[in-house]
């Protein structure tokens, strides 16, 4: 599945109410490490059907960043049943993301 772009309008539906676990990638266009991570997230999204991958731009959605206390990007937050269950800050390799969602 492709990565879904999420903003404050569809956050509730795509993340909170999601049946599947959700990996939210908080990022920004000017953030180099986020741009490095982007293609890895795309790859994982195509390989994994059991987890939903969403991308949240923190410049366009400062409310969501603030609500989840995101103060460093890239920041990956794993949601299960609408609740945050795991978090990772900074650039990490693909296998570490796999163990985050695994």
């Amino acid at each position: 599945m492709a990565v879904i772009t999420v903003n404050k309008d569809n956050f509730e539906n795509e993340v909170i109410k999601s049946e599947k676990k959700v990996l939210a990638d908080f990022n920004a266009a000017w953030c180099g490490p986020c741009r490095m991570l982007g293609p890895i997230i795309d790859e994982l999204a195509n390989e994994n059907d059991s987890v939903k991958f969403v991308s949240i731009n923190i410049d366009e959605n400062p409310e969501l960043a603030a609500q989840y206390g995101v103060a460093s990007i890239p920041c990956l937050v794993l949601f299960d049943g609408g609740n945050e269950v795991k978090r990772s800050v900074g650039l990490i390799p693909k296998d570490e993301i796999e163990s985050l969602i695994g």
Partner: protein
Amino acid sequence: MYDILIVGAGPAGLTAAIYARRASKSVLVLEALTYGGQIVNTLEIENYPAEPHISGFDFATKLYNQAKELGAEVRFERVTEIRKESSDADASHFGVITAKSEYEAKTVIIATGSANRKLGISGEEALIGRGISYCATCDGAFYRGKTVAVVGGGNTALEDALYLSDVAGKVYLIHRRDEFRGEEIAAAGLKEKANVEFILNSVVTELKEDGGKLVSVTVADAKSIAAGEPTGLREIPVDGLFVAVGRIPSNQSFAGLIETDEAGYIKAGENCKTNVSGIFVAGDNRTKEVRQLVTAASDGAIAATAAINFLNR
């Protein structure tokens, strides 16, 4: 068995890969994170010859694609050990170990660069991304109008403080000495900033959090810490702490085999040769004066050429 195995896909490692492939050697690059190294954190590079303005991301991507186009193989695995399998100079042979696998190579180039030095105080790890940051240009935007502190006294700390003074409401600059090593110009610029306050002769001793977020840093007199009895304790409420206390070379995995200096840099001159014949070093993790992209690229070229000559001898 690869001709040349390169550890690290930063500017030095990828440049070495380009030179090695152009000499038709088989090349494997092993990278722990993603390609590009430290430079992906930079918004704009303005001092690389013939590239007056380029983002760190674009620089890294162009360099990576160039190495890949020339046929370099890149795998994303962290190297944990290098073993010298044969001490026979005519049949040099190394085992390179990763968490997933083990590779064999006739020569190795270590291009592992450096990583941010941490403060090493309790709670630091847990507060990364929740108040603690090692990159002002990456995370400054989260502190618009807020109170932040920068700790460190080098160029990076001064530049970070200057950058943050335009974003944050208030910036404290905490430094353990009473003067700065960094460029005077930057220091002078900072002194003119009304929202920057210098806290000199001080070290951060404690981080306080509330609800998983950093709320204050406590500083103490630097000399008193050295003497073992902290005095001049002061708690400063902050929303963010930017740590800029330097970098450490990423050579820990090779400590037993490769000779380093006291700070952990692999000992080698401009010829990039280490104490082990057949193992070369390139980039920021080598003992040298200037640690920049252009010198990392230069090392990559020299180390690869040395490895090629070693193989062809």
